[in-house]
């Protein structure tokens, strides 16, 4: 059972108030984008490519067009150049990839949209899509993965890190680890599918779409359609999970928009679960090589971490988290390298703890290998290498509570009872293993704006184009305004998820609270200044409001995050508010840190691997709401278990297709897999990171769990497993 279901209010934490939108969600009153009913809606259904590379030679649309209710079929032939190119975010644009939707006859990856059927009903559109005949031109087999002879590896030179003399130090060191690791392709699979509804009203386009960044959709779509961005409004008041998949503009939105324009009616698309595997980016597979060298006492002498990440031919995407894994521990000789390997696949993207999950798995497993070789407790290995400054640039950590997290989690877990020898903790037919690993996530923030209105009767309204992904954005916004203006939270209402509101940062990179809370605070400051109560504590705002005789005060504020130039404020008004921080600052490094402890049980005969207990402790600056933060942390830890034992998008090399693109075959843990999970929030104060003192908890819970599981499996079985996911056949 969950031991901290109702987390306690701790030091530097706000109140664990219940979710602002909880009642609306559990009663079904909350309207997600696909729930919105528009008049005379027509339905779209995608037909996707079934080859991995080649061209469309011809369409046979006769049978599809004959299905009763079919209104229109979009192909590259029927829409011509109606959709213009917009660059991907990796080139400074808005889109999650640089493929122009239905741009040509060329097929660049399996799952690429090649036609869109518009019909009176979803069922008719689906039937017609199934009846579309596509003749593909002659094509050679695609490069499906990194092993394909056709895949092209490319060193990403700007990501290289060199400190000291790694080769010499490694050669001379007494203790060494040299190991290779791999992680598979994974897909975010939010419960809510990729839906888009578009409606033209006069010259204005309204888009209902679940999004982590409504303004990226607005401005990118305007470029694609060649219209003024101010004619587009994107609404996303609830999002049913995103995890990076809904971060930026995808190809589907323009297709639905032009379909709606062509037929003069609203059009609704809900891509199927399978199609969702190529609608947006995903976590690409990685290969990694880690070399560690240490003194007999465990102090690191040399560290080399090199990664290879799969990407599409069109976009060079790499998460490259060696920038972080080289900065976690004291070490004088360091090499970091990142390579992108291009293949015939859709463009990867962000998935919760995008680089930190795979790169953290390799580094933290390698450290466990080192601790075994040294016959040293893995917690103590982290302790002797703890540091106050990162070793690459010599910059100070704004705050660092790594060992406090280890100590609190170890105590809660009962780590002192561990016997070190692998296989030494058997319980009947079950081999028991305990493992641990560090968790880390860069603390980032971006520019954001907010508007706050205080009325004479003590009501407050807060608005900002942030996003409610399930993480608790509504609650956080209400809570910050209530605290700043000294009103009960029940008196606060919130608007978000609408591009007509003051712009906010993309809700990604664990940066939403760290970015939007300071903007709300700044707007509340302005209200207090108007009332003459300055920046003093909020008591007295209500009285001052009454005394002022004013009916309403409304203030708008924008905040610029540390490390961003002045021009970046203009970018915020153009859908380009991206977070920075972490290891990208000239003067300091910022990390949330944590410790993961896991108990696994492996059956001696039948080898099932189960996580029977997990304890994580995390220090992430100020926790505004311990209840929603706790939900994010245990949710993250469950993702970590999932990445260790379950998730794996399987690629068929013959056509580069995903053959388990459904929730029966793409395994995620079910309730029965998650037995006892505990997240401890370690109090930490960091006044430097941002005004709110918030580091963010959206992603750190994932990081390190896979390594802790792999390390625990080693402890249980003596088998060192370096490839995810770990399955029955690997421990036989």
């Amino acid at each position, binding site marked *: 059972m969950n031991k901290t279901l109702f987390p306690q209010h701790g030091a530097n934490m706000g109140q664990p108030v219940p979710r602002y939108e909880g009642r609306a969600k559990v009663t079904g009153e909350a309207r997600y984008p696909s729930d919105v009913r528009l008049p005379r809606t027509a339905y779209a259904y995608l037909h996707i490519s079934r080859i991995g590379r080649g061209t469309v030679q011809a369409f046979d649309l006769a049978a599809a067009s004959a299905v009763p209710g079919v209104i229109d079929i979009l192909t590259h032939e029927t829409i011509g150049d109606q959709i213009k190119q917009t660059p991907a975010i990796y080139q400074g644009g808005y889109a999650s990839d640089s493929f122009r939707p239905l741009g040509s006859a060329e097929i660049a990856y399996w799952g690429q949209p090649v036609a869109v059927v518009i019909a009176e009903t979803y069922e008719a559109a689906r039937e017609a899509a199934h009846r579309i005949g596509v003749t593909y031109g002659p094509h050679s087999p695609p490069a499906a993965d990194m092993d394909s002879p056709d895949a092209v590896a490319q060193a990403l030179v700007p990501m290289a890190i060199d400190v000291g003399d790694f080769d010499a130090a490694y050669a001379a060191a007494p203790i060494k680890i040299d190991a290779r690791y791999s992680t598979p392709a994974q897909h975010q699979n939010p419960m809510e599918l990729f839906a888009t509804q578009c409606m033209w009203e006069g010259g204005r386009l309204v888009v209902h779409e679940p999004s982590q960044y409504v303004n990226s959709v607005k401005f990118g779509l305007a470029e694609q359609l060649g219209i003024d961005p101010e004619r587009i409004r994107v609404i996303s008041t609830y999002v049913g999970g995103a995890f990076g998949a809904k971060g930026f503009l995808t190809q589907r939105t323009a297709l639905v928009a032009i379909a709606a324009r062509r037929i003069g009616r609203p059009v609704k698309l809900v891509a199927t679960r399978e199609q969702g595997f190529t609608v947006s980016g995903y976590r690409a597979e990685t290969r990694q090589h880690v070399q560690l060298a240490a003194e007999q006492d465990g102090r690191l002498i040399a560290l080399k971490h090199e990664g290879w990440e799969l990407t599409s031919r069109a976009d060079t995407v790499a998460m490259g988290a060696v920038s972080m894994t080289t900065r976690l521990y004291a070490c004088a000789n360091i090499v970091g390298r990142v390579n992108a390997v291009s293949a015939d696949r859709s463009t990867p993207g962000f998935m919760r703890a995008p680089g930190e999950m795979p790169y953290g798995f390799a580094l933290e497993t390698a450290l466990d290998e080192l601790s075994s070789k040294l016959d040293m407790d893995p917690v103590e290995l982290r302790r002797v290498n703890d540091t106050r400054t990162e070793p690459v640039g010599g910059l100070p950590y704004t705050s660092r509570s790594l060992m406090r997290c280890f100590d609190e989690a170890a105590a809660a877990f009962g780590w002192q009872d561990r016997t070190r020898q692998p296989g030494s903790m058997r319980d009947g037919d079950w081999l028991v293993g305990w493992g641990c690993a560090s968790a880390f996530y860069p603390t980032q923030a971006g520019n954001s704006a907010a508007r706050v209105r205080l009325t004479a009767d003590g009501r407050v309204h807060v608005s900002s184009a942030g996003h409610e992904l399930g993480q608790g954005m509504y609650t956080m916004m209400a809570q910050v305004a209530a605290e700043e203006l000294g009103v009960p939270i029940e008196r606060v209402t919130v608007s978000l998820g609408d591009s007509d509101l003051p712009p906010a940062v993309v809700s990604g990179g664990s940066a939403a609270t760290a970015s939007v809370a300071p903007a709300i605070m700044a707007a509340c400051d302005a209200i207090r200044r108007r009332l003459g109560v300055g920046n003093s504590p909020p008591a007295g705002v209500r009285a001052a409001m009454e005394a002022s005789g004013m009916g309403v005060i409304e203030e708008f504020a924008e905040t610029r995050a540390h490390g961003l130039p002045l021009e970046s404020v203009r970018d915020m008004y153009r859908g380009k508010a991206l977070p920075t921080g972490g290891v990208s600052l000239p003067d300091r490094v910022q990390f949330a840190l944590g410790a993961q402890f896991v108990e696994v049980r492996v059956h001696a005969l039948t080898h099932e691997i189960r996580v029977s207990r997990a304890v994580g402790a995390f220090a992430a600056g100020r926790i505004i709401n311990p209840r929603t933060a706790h939900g994010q942390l245990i949710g993250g830890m469950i993702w970590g278990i999932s990445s260790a034992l379950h998730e794996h998008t399987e690629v068929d090399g013959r056509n580069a297709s995903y053959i388990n693109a459904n929730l029966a*075959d793409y395994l995620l843990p079910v*309730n029965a897999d998650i037995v006892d999970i505990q997240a401890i929030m370690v109090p930490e104060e960091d006044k430097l990171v941002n005004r709110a003192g918030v580091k963010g908890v959206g992603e750190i819970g994932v990081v390190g769990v896979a390594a802790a599981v792999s390390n625990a499996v080693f402890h249980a079985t003596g088998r060192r497993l370096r490839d995810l996911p770990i399955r029955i056949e690997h421990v036989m």
Partner: protein
Amino acid sequence: MRPFGYSRPSSVSNAILEVREFLAADPQSSLSFLAGGTTLLDLMKLDVVRPERIIDLNALRDELGYTRSDGSALRLGAFARMADVAADAEVIANYPVIAQSLSLAASAQLRNMASLGGNVLQRTRCPYFRDPSWSACNKRVPGSGCAAVQGANRAHAVLGTSDHCIATYPGDFAQALVALDASIVIAGPRGNRTIPFDSLHRRPDGNPHLETSLQPGEIIAEFIVPARSWMRRSLYLKIRDRQSYEFAVAAAAVALDLDGGMVRDARIALGGVAAVPWRAREAEDALRGQPLTEAVARTAARLAFAEARPQSHNAYKIELGQSTLVRALLQASSMELRP
């Protein structure tokens, strides 16, 4: 999903009448029965099956939804819900392997919808069968080939396969029925017939599209499990990649008749590893008259997999299947039965 004709007959006899009329009008056209719908509707939405006529049999639940037991047999109506039978006190006490095979299958929601008859007819989870964009699938398109042989086949079968099809039979309940020598009553246009359950599923051989011995228009009406007191010493062990809501990578249904430590009789069926519900008679023979030690169980398990044929990604199933059977036998032998 393509348009289809639909009717909902009110009784078995009316259903058979409709079948007769339909087949008489056009013997070539495709007909599907709808029970819980947990397989059929999925496959229709995926465009894998395209029946022209659906005969919805859910009105037969009143007639054929029972679980009853007399001295000689347990009788289960083919339209009983999986969840109801799994929760039946008589089944739990005297046929634990049946209750467990049902309760370990699917999810609570699916078990509440799915019928027993539909469950044993569940189609394979082979991804190349379930995606019609793969042109090669002998089960879907006779003679087209098998995409799984050269494809991702970690989940595929090692027993009972052929060069034409390596798909795994996905269900659980069927293993319990095979192990317990169940028979089924079939209603059809040419009257009722009763056959041993283990003759229902056909091995793929050269005709993987012919999955069962049911004739067009035939309906499974009832399962009959002969009563034997030692069936109380039975269990279903299901090994899978997650703890629930997942198909077996290996499973064993076992029932033991023990005389002291000696095996008087044994029933063994294997799941997750075979093309059809798989009775392991050689393993049963090897147990009879022997003490149930781990070594004896291992010998029996080896015999059960003697004919196993691995594919590129599923060789582990041969060892895992044996371990699963050994564990199931040892667990069954140590079951404490109330007198």
